[in-house]
């Protein structure tokens, strides 16, 4: 199962759960699973960046998530 980790700002939305494990095909499916579990979290996740297996995505969507994947939600990064 993929390991999903939430940053501190998301903890209010996850009832304090920092980390869960799920089996999904891709990021889109992950959002569906999370929204079902914690209605309303999708809006917050849309403001986050996400790192899937070390790669940072500002706007992930169909990126695959494998059984051994690590998914970290993180603050979005801007730049100069």
């Amino acid at each position, binding site marked *: 199962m993929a390991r999903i*980790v939430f*940053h*501190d*700002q998301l*903890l*209010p939305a996850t009832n304090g759960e920092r980390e869960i494990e799920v089996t999904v095909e891709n990021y889109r499916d992950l959002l569906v699973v999370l929204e079902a579990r914690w209605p309303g979290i999708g809006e917050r996740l849309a*403001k986050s960046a996400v*790192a*899937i*297996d*070390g*790669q*940072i*995505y*500002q*706007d*992930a969507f169909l*990126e695959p998530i494998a059984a051994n994947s*690590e998914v*970290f*939600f*993180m*603050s*979005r*990064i*801007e*730049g*100069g």
Partner: protein
Amino acid sequence: MAEAVDYKYIGTSPVRPDGVDKVTGRAQFAADQNMPNTLYGKILRSPHAHANIKSVDVSKALAMEGVYAAVSGADFPGGARGKVGGEGGGDIGDVARNIMARDKALYHGHAVAAVAATSLTIADAALAMIDVEYETLAPVLDVVAAMAADSPLLDATNFTKNLPETPDKPSNIASVTVLTRGNVDEGFEQADVTVEGEYHIPMAHQGYIEPHACTATVNEEGKATVWCSTQGHFEFRSMTSKILDWKVGDLKFIPAEIGGGFGGKTTVYLEPVAVLLSKLAGRPVKMMMSREEVFRATGPTSGSVCRVKVGAKKDGTITAAKAWLAYEAGAFAGAPIGPGAMAIFAPYVLENFHVEAHDVLVNKPKVAAYRAPGAPQSMHAMEIALDDIAREIGMDPLDLRLKNAASEGTRAPYGPKFPAIGFKECLEAAKAHPNYTAPVPEGAGRGVAAGFWFNIGMQSSAEVRINEDGTVIIMEGNPDIGGSRASMCLMAAETLGVDYERVKAYIGDTESTGFCNVTGGSRTTFATGMAVVQACEDIIAQCKARAAATWGVDEDQVEWEDGQAIPAPGVNADVTPMSLADVMASAHKTGGPLLGRASLNASGAGASFSVNFVDLMVDKETGKVDVLAFTAIQDAGTAIHPAYVEGQMQGGAAQGLGWALNEEYIYDADGVMENAGFLDYRVPVASDLPMIDCQIIEVPNPRHPYGVRGVGETPIVAPLAAAANAVRAATGVRINDLPLSPPNILAAIDSD
């Protein structure tokens, strides 16, 4: 780690395609746009740092001869709140209120009204005729005081976001970010030495030499064309459309050549105002900020207070680190606390840490991005703490960093594991560098620090067109601030196998090329470069198909080599290889013109690390600092155009040194910036700096076809602490605050 590859064009430093126009004065920057019948637009700005706006009356200005339009906040749509697209992620309602105040003026210089008139003189006179009734309020200027429960509030509807419990009272703290791992208390117990400090850095400006400017013209059909100085014309179009509630398709944005940005030209200030004035006046409107307006009313970067505690064992192993950060957002939420918190410990292997960062409203201009936004402030604190630890345990500061350096597989403080990165390579290069092995000049001090930036990808589009003679045109949508056209041409030349001189790159407007996010986040050469490479690959695929059709073979029997379609090995075809020119010569028979294209949302931007060291001499009687030598070492992934990579490193070093030594926003008690000009906002001049030695490290980014990481932002991060550490070495006195200006240094020496 990708293998080092021998390239033919990549890694060379040819003259840039837009160069001749820039050395002759032909290049058209935003203020160089001229249309017949143009009016000049000017903005009236708040003389108060914090005030309720009771009323704005523009009628007397409007009645003046030569004045064709006048607007204030009431003339703009209410504006739905919502996220600004793309980078940054601020609130569009805030952007709307920032470019034209509504019920409140939130900083000295905040726009409150605007006019369009036939001359600059008349426009100035008209501004003086606008009546604004203010009710002044106490300004909130100090970031820590602003966080206090009893502070006056900028926004009574602001409730701190991201707290475990929703607060019941409003505050000036817009949001809080926390990053944690392990157990810091246990970590500190394992430490043999701990150092602790509070570090203050004042607000600083990007200081691009070109003031913001634009010309807007709205025709009778209600369609607007806007020429402007922007790092991202698509995002400017989007913001303008949301602020004015216009259809995106009714706005055409044409990016002029841009005279510097460094993050400061990623958001609108003038453009929606110019469009509205032009619509009302029925004539083109040109707006140009004065330098004073640039300082007072555009987005500098956050001033900050950082408290850091770091513990380490005698062998140098860092056991715990803790940071508390407070960044000034300015008048609206959005200080770069996320990146600041994520960057502070990023170069190091760290099991126990805790970072808490605060985005704080103060009555100063709303901050904008500035080169690695958020990282210089927090990393200044950490890199000073490490210097102090190195001294306490008697270890070379580079060895201390090597002992703890992150490398491939290290879990970054923000969660994921690093892919291939070049931090250790930078540190090793620094240790071996002749400037480091050379003794420190008599009386001087040497300071070392590391830098880091994430780099980003995001959306890019590119088209590649082949002319009848086989020459190549690249059309993409990222304004070229520092020579990116040359990099695009080099990557295209390499991919297509044609001479660099036969490739030209152009920046299209919002109607002539596909969407591109801003030139920022060090993404252009990475992400748009990737799109250009893919568009070239599209061309190659088409050429192979055309050659196959011409030769009567299958497509997979054709290969592309050295700029030509050739039969694949083993294919028995008695044919002449086809170059781009050859394909074009028969293109009318084989399917028409050649047009390659690519669009993507790039991921896989590679983190970039740096190590800087600087030798400084301090006049102990006056506190004056002389920079004797500066060495910048940075992992660029692959340097596509090494001279411009060096240019980024040198320019970032100069900006970082300027911020470290003399640059600062100085406010009086009323919240008026006292040094809103280049005379007293002291950016480095040529005689302040030595040559800046560069060493480019190349640990290719496996996620880019040519290994590019992005180089533009990391260079500004390390100079702040490097300078502070050098002053410490030269004087024996630790100064936690910036700038290291002569009065500050002398006061520290004398009180030591």
